[in-house]
C-alpha cells in the first residue's frame, strides 16, 4: 500500500510518478481539466475555448508560469478528439503550456461500479494530478473562469505548501450571451445567478470541483480524489476536503471568486429532475456519506500504470491495460473520517 494519508498505512512507498512529460522546467501551477467532445451542457467546446483563452491570457499577462493538463476521458467515437478541435482553435496554447492525455474509453467501463454513471470526472482529474508537473496543482473545470484575486495570488506566488486553497464559485446566468469574456461581464453582479454565498469553514465545500488548489506533494499525499467509491461523481470533491481535514491539512479561502458559466445539464439545474429517483442520475447517486468517510486509494490511483502512447507533441493516449485498473472492490480502502490529525503524525 502506498497510502500516504492512508489510515493505518505503514508503507513508505511514494506513488509512482506516471508518464510526466519531462522537458521545460516545472511551472508554478498546473491547471488540471477534464472533458470530451460530447456537447455536454450544450455548446461545451465553445464554453471551454472561451474559458481557456481567458484564463491562459490572464495567467500569461501576469507572468504566472503555468500549464494546462487536460484529460480527455473516454472520448466518443465518430467525432473528432477535443484535443484536435481545441488546439486547432487556440494556436497560442503552445506545447510548453499544455499537456493532453486521451484516456481509452475502456477505463470508464472497467472502473465504474455504476452503469448509469456517464463520466468519471474525478478519476479523470486523478490522471491529471499524477501527471502534472507544477509546484501547485489546481483542479478545476472547463467552464470555470479564474477571478482577479485568484490570478493576483498566483502572480505573487503567495501560496503555502501543505495547505488547500478554495475559491467561492459564482454562477453566471444561463442563456445570456457573454460574448468574449471580460472583467466587465464577470464582475457585474447582475450576471450572477442566485445570491452570493460564502465558503464555510472548516471544509469550505460547495462547488469544490471547480476550484481546489494545493501544492503537488499535498495532492499526492492525499492520493487525489476517492477512487474506491466509484459509484458517483457527486460529492467526491467534498470527500477530498473531508480527507484533507481529517488528515490535518488546513483549508483556506483564497480570497476571491471564480466564475462558472452555467449550462443545461449542470448539477445545479438538473438535480430537481432526479428528485425521488436519485439512483438514476447520470452523475451518480447523491445520497452517500461523503462527509463521514475517508479513503485509501490503491497505489495505482490516477491510472499510474496505464501505458502511454505518444500521439503528438505533448499529447498522449493512455491505452487500456488491466494492470492499471484497481480492484473492483477495496473495502479496506474506506474508513470513518476522524477529526484533524496533524499531517506530521501520518506515515508519508
Amino acid at each position, binding site marked *: 500500500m502506498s497510502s500516504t494519508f492512508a489510515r493505518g498505512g505503514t508503507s513508505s512507498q511514494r506513488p509512482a510518478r506516471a508518464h510526466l512529460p519531462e522537458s521545460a522546467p516545472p511551472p508554478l501551477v498546473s491547471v488540471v481539466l477534464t472533458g470530451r467532445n460530447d456537447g455536454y451542457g450544450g455548446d461545451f467546446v465553445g464554453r471551454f475555448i472561451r474559458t481557456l483563452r481567458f484564463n491562459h491570457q490572464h495567467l500569461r499577462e501576469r507572468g504566472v508560469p503555468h500549464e494546462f493538463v487536460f484529460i480527455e476521458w473516454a472520448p466518443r467515437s465518430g467525432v473528432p478528439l477535443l484535443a484536435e478541435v481545441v488546439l486547432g482553435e487556440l494556436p497560442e496554447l503552445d506545447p510548453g503550456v499544455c499537456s493532453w492525455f486521451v484516456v481509452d474509453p475502456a477505463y470508464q467501463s472497467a472502473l*465504474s*461500479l*455504476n*452503469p448509469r454513471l456517464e463520466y468519471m470526472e474525478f478519476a479523470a482529474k486523478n490522471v491529471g494530478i499524477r501527471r502534472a508537473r507544477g509546484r501547485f496543482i489546481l483542479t478545476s473545470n472547463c467552464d470555470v473562469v479564474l477571478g482577479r484575486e485568484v490570478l493576483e495570488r498566483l502572480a505573487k506566488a503567495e501560496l503555502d505548501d501543505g495547505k488547500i486553497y478554495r475559491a467561492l464559485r459564482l454562477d453566471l446566468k444561463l442563456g445570456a450571451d457573454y460574448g468574449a469574456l471580460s472583467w466587465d461581464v464577470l464582475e457585474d453582479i447582475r450576471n450572477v445567478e442566485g445570491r452570493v454565498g460564502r465558503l464555510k469553514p472548516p471544509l469550505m465545500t460547495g462547488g469544490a470541483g471547480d476550484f481546489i488548489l494545493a501544492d503537488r506533494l499535498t495532492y499526492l499525499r492525499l492520493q487525489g480524489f476517492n477512487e*474506491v*467509491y*466509484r*459509484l458517483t461523481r457527486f460529492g467526491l470533491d467534498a470527500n477530498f476536503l473531508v480527507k484533507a481535514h481529517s488528515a490535518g491539512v488546513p483549508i483556506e479561502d483564497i480570497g476571491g471568486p471564480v466564475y462558472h458559466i452555467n449550462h443545461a445539464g449542470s448539477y445545479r439545474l438538473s438535480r430537481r429532475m432526479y428528485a425521488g429517483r436519485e439512483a438514476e442520475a447520470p452523475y451518480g*447517486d447523491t445520497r*452517500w*456519506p461523503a462527509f*463521514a*468517510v475517508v479513503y485509501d486509494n490503491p497505489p495505482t490511483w490516477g491510472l499510474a500504470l496505464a501505458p502511454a502512447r505518444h500521439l503528438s507533441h505533448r499529447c498522449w493516449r493512455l491505452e487500456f491495460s488491466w494492470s492499471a485498473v484497481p480492484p*473492483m*472492490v*477495496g*473495502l479496506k480502502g*474506506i*474508513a*470513518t*473520517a476522524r477529526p484533524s490529525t496533524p499531517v506530521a503524525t501520518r506515515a508519508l
Partner: protein
Amino acid sequence: MIRRLVHRVLRLFGLVSARRHERLARELEAVSKKYSQAKEASKAWEKRARQHSELQVHLKSAQVALKEANQQTRRLERANAGGDRKLKVLQGRLGDVDLLRRTLPGTDRELSMARDHLMAIEAKLDILEGAANVLDLRTRRHVIPTSG
C-alpha cells in the same frame, strides 16, 4: 248587714266600692306587672332556647369539622410518610442522573463513532452492490441463451 246587701246589689250591676275598686285596680296592676314580667321571662327563655339550639347546631358542625380535620391530619401524615419515601427514591435517582450525566459525553462519543462506522459500512455495502451489479451485467453479456 245592709251595707253588705247594698254591696251585693251593686255588684249585680257591676259596681263596687271605691275602696274595693282601688284594691282591685292595685291587684290588677300587680297581676299585669307579673304578667309582663312573666312574658319577658318567657321571651328570654325562648331566646335562650334558640341560642341553645343554634349552639347545638354549631357544635355539630364543629364536631364534623373536627372529624374532617382529624381525617385530613391522618391523610397528611400518610402523605408525609409517602413523600419521605419518594424523596429518598428521588435522591437515589438524582445520584443515577449524576452518574448518567458523567457517562453521557462518553456515550455520545461512542454513539457518534457507531454512527460513523455505520456510514462507512453503508459506503462499503454500496461498493459491494455496485460491483455485484457490474459483474451481473458483464455475465449476462457473455451468457449464450439456450433454448429448451
